[in-house]
């Protein structure tokens, strides 16, 4: 049976605070429970003589229902018997039962006795509002969102009710909490879908307020990586299943011919010639300029100069390739070393140089959260638009190969001496790569003025922390799980809505096992198509989220699924395998892209068809 209904209003009263639809309306920290309840009654200017006769539990539930329905509920839409009330708590009417028991030793109080049933709360609310539909009170140890979702949606789908107030009202001594939800069949401007996840989110005061924020669209994409110097070349490489991994040719290192990497084909001299930049600047900057320019040209936004435009970029080691050259003479004598080589060491310098080339100056910043850096830069950019601060944001990241990172990953013993095999039982590690990937994010208004249809929209995103270890992922992939789950909630989607996951899939035993476990936990039985494009591009670190966002946007637009190269044996701990063949023209509505990094930084993005 399909679930029906929308949460059109919510009210939570807890911790001396009253919240409606996630916004706190009233707070009174000094008061005890009875005084706090009376202060709510006064603050909201309520007038109902029965209020002062009620016991505390009824007062709490009644107040929550008043605030829940105030200004949001169109009572005239419904007949009295069409509106019902399904409430729950853990301790029934224990608070009043105890008070009544105490009164028995002297004179049993009839006014207390009538409240020694929990369903009196529902009665009080029904009397006040003349509701005559089904009502019930259930006892659960904890707030049971799954039960409420099933029970109430059945009442709605079978037309027993047209609207229902449901939730939790609990009060024992100084502990109390009310969380009421108004469920109606029709959507409203502020409503969110009636799911157990949303009930829990509101119950815990974690409202997905951005469900109401404006949409952000992807109007242009640009990429440079080991498999191609632009979008078209990368798609061709996927089609021909041609990886970009090979021997080190540009960098001077003892690991040449020992550790394979995924290099961009151009030398620094060639990059300088193409970009018109001086050859002695960081390779990261030059890669970034190429991809960001492609993205901006692709978007072809009319009258761009009249719009508020920002640049949010990511990288992990800034101008480290040049700092390495500086440090050799500097270490021998700290008065030596060409200052030009260290001047742009900071991550921000790379961003600034690219922004100057793009002539963007309204806003710029840089994010560095290791391997999830550019996924974070993309959704930070989207939020700048959603918050009305900018109209257009070029967002993504760039990273060139450096001796610093190559040796760093080598000390961790997570580099594969052969070509990486993501999500394979016999995977040995990752291959480092380099490149840059950017998307052009635009507001709804800008999207409407484009001369072409945007690629897709950025519908979901989440950043969660694994909080397990500085470099290793937790065995159950807690951070990955929370990031994917959070992104689904943000996009208001179910796991079964996702058609393709662009996995983080580095090829290290630890990452793929943690990510696989998290995917299993979230998607079990409804596995979408999955693959790691790092089997083509290598792991491009701070650029990977940007590059893979470009691939994800293309997947939505052209119905592409990318193959996971060199896959042979399914991992023992999971019951799924990645896709191994390139496919195009598929119906793809939603793509998830995962980026996880050192420091437990886990981010997931969701790209959706318009």
């Amino acid at each position, binding site marked *: 049976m399909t679930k029906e209904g929308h949460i059109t209003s919510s009210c939570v009263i807890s911790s001396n605070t009253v919240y409606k639809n996630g916004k706190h309306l009233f707070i009174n920290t000094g008061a005890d429970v009875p005084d706090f309840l009376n202060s709510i009654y006064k603050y909201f200017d309520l007038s109902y003589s029965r209020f002062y006769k009620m016991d505390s539990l009824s007062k709490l539930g009644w107040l929550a229902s008043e605030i829940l329905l105030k200004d949001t509920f169109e009572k005239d839409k419904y007949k009295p018997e069409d509106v019902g009330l399904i409430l729950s708590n853990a301790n029934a009417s224990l608070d009043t039962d105890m008070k009544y028991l105490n009164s028995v030793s002297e004179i049993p109080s009839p006014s207390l006795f009538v409240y020694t049933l929990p369903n009196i709360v529902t009665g009080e609310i029904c009397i006040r509002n003349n509701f005559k539909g089904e009502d019930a009170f259930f006892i659960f140890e904890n707030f049971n969102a799954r039960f409420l979702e099933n029970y109430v949606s059945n009442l709605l789908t079978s037309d027993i009710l047209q609207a229902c107030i449901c939730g939790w009202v609990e009060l024992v001594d100084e502990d109390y909490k009310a969380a009421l939800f108004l469920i109606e069949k029709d959507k409203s401007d502020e409503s969110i879908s009636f799911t157990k996840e949303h009930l829990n989110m509101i119950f815990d005061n974690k409202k997905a307020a*951005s469900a109401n924020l404006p949409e952000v669209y992807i109007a242009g994409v640009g990429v440079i990586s080991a498999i191609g110097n632009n979008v078209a070349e990368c798609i061709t490489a996927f089609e021909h299943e041609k990886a970009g991994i090979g021997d080190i040719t540009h960098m001077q290192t003892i690991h040449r011919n020992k550790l394979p990497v995924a290099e961009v084909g151009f030398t620094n001299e060639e990059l300088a010639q193409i970009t018109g930049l001086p050859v002695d600047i960081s390779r990261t900057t030059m890669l970034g300029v190429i991809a960001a320019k492609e993205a901006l040209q692709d978007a072809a936004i009319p009258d761009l100069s009249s719009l508020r435009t920002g640049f949010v970029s990511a990288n992990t080691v800034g101008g480290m390739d040049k700092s390495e050259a500086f440090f050799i003479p500097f*270490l021998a004598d700290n008065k030596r070393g060409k200052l030009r080589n*260290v*001047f742009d060491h900071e991550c921000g310098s790379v961003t600034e140089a690219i922004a100057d080339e793009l002539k963007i100056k309204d806003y710029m910043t840089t*994010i*560095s959260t290791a391997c999830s850096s550019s996924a974070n830069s993309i959704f930070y950019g989207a939020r700048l638009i959603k*918050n009305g601060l900018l109209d257009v944001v070029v967002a993504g990241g760039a990273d060139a190969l450096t001796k*610093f990172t190559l040796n760093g990953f080598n000390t961790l013993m997570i580099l594969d001496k052969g070509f990486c095999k993501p999500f394979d039982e016999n995977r040995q590690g990752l291959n480092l790569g380099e490149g840059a990937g950017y998307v052009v994010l635009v507001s709804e208004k800008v999207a409407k003025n484009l001369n072409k249809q945007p690629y897709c929209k950025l519908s979901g995103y989440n950043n969660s*922390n694994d909080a397990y270890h500085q470099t290793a992922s937790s065995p159950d992939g807690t951070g990955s799980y929370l990031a994917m789950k959070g992104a689904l909630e943000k996009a208001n989607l179910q796991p079964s809505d996702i058609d393709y996951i662009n996995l983080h899939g580095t090829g290290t035993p630890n990452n793929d096992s943690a990510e696989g476990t998290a995917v299993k936990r979230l998607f079990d039985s409804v596995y979408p198509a999955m693959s790691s494009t790092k089997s083509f591009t290598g792991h491009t670190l701070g650029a990977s989220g940007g590059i893979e966002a470009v691939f994800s946007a293309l997947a939505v637009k052209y119905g592409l699924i990318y193959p996971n190269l060199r896959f042979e044996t399914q991992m023992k701990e999971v019951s799924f395998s990645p896709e191994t063949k390139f496919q195009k023209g598929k119906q793809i509505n939603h793509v998830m892209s995962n980026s996880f990094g050192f420091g*437990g930084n886990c981010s997931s993005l969701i790209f959706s068809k318009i």
Partner: protein
Amino acid sequence: MKIYIRSTAAVSPQNTFGNADFLIEPVEYYGTRLAAIEPDYSKYIDPKSIRRMSHVIKMGVASAKECLNQAGVEIPGAIITGTAFGCLEDTVSFLTRVIEMDEELLPPTAFIQSTHNTVAAQIALLLKCHQYNNTFVHKGISFESALLDAVMLLNENEADNVLVGGTEELTDASFAILTRLSLYKRWPVDNLSIFNTRSKGSIGGEGAVFFLLTDKENETNLAEFKGVQTFYKPENIEEVEKKIISFLKQYDLKIEDIDLVITGKNGDLKNDDIYDQLNQSVFSNVSLANFKHLCGEYPTASSFGLWLAANIIKKGDVPAIVIEDEVKTDPPKNVLIYNHYFNTYHSLMLLTAC
């Protein structure tokens, strides 16, 4: 929605950590490098971890935890840091070994802790905080970017409170390089009289300053955080003036309504010229205060400026050592912080009494 500074904690070259007096006895240095005064880390971090952690990680973690203690909050709704240089000590240490050992037999620890997000990550790890975690690394507006992210998260109702901080460490290598790049003076100076030297260069500094921002009212909130704005490469001083006026206008304020402007003057002639020009125009009738003689110049030094402003408002007292000439409205209610970084990145932050 209103946003408040719930609490703050600062590790800096001054006695700012814990229950120290509010800059009554400023610490005097003779030289061009101010080093942060280390608190007793064992109160915040277990001894085994202390040994592994670099200077900036220890400063950051201690100040973050103290900030949460002050607020009585165990787990924040998000952790966001700003740092231009990141974990320099570990970065330089690993880079040095790569070169000196010729890429062989390298220990991984320095590399592991070299990523810019290490401070935010270590805080999350110690708190077991799975929430939003981000690190901004954009030169002189790294901290301001983190603040803007925090403000947006609160606006989006994604969190009830956000831990946000600016961290930076100065190492021997970075001090030598930045001195060669003419950031610092070429001869030793007394930090407390740096504004009288009228010469090129500033003094280097470092520190870790954290804030807990919240949208919940509370009696012990320090100040209301009205907003933050940054701008890049203004064409001329008139554009800076315009930006300042339009920033205040967003909050229905005029420059006359500002009781105190805290500026990022750092003792470098060229740098301070911008402030001097503004003091003749937009700031000509407002009370002025400075802070970089106390914490030194570094890319996230504006976090020290914000710490100062929040404390001035809460305590209703402007420490004598920060006052440029006189304070006309005492205690100040509306405090503006204006800072620029090489006249490339400019930032404005506005606080008001709750």
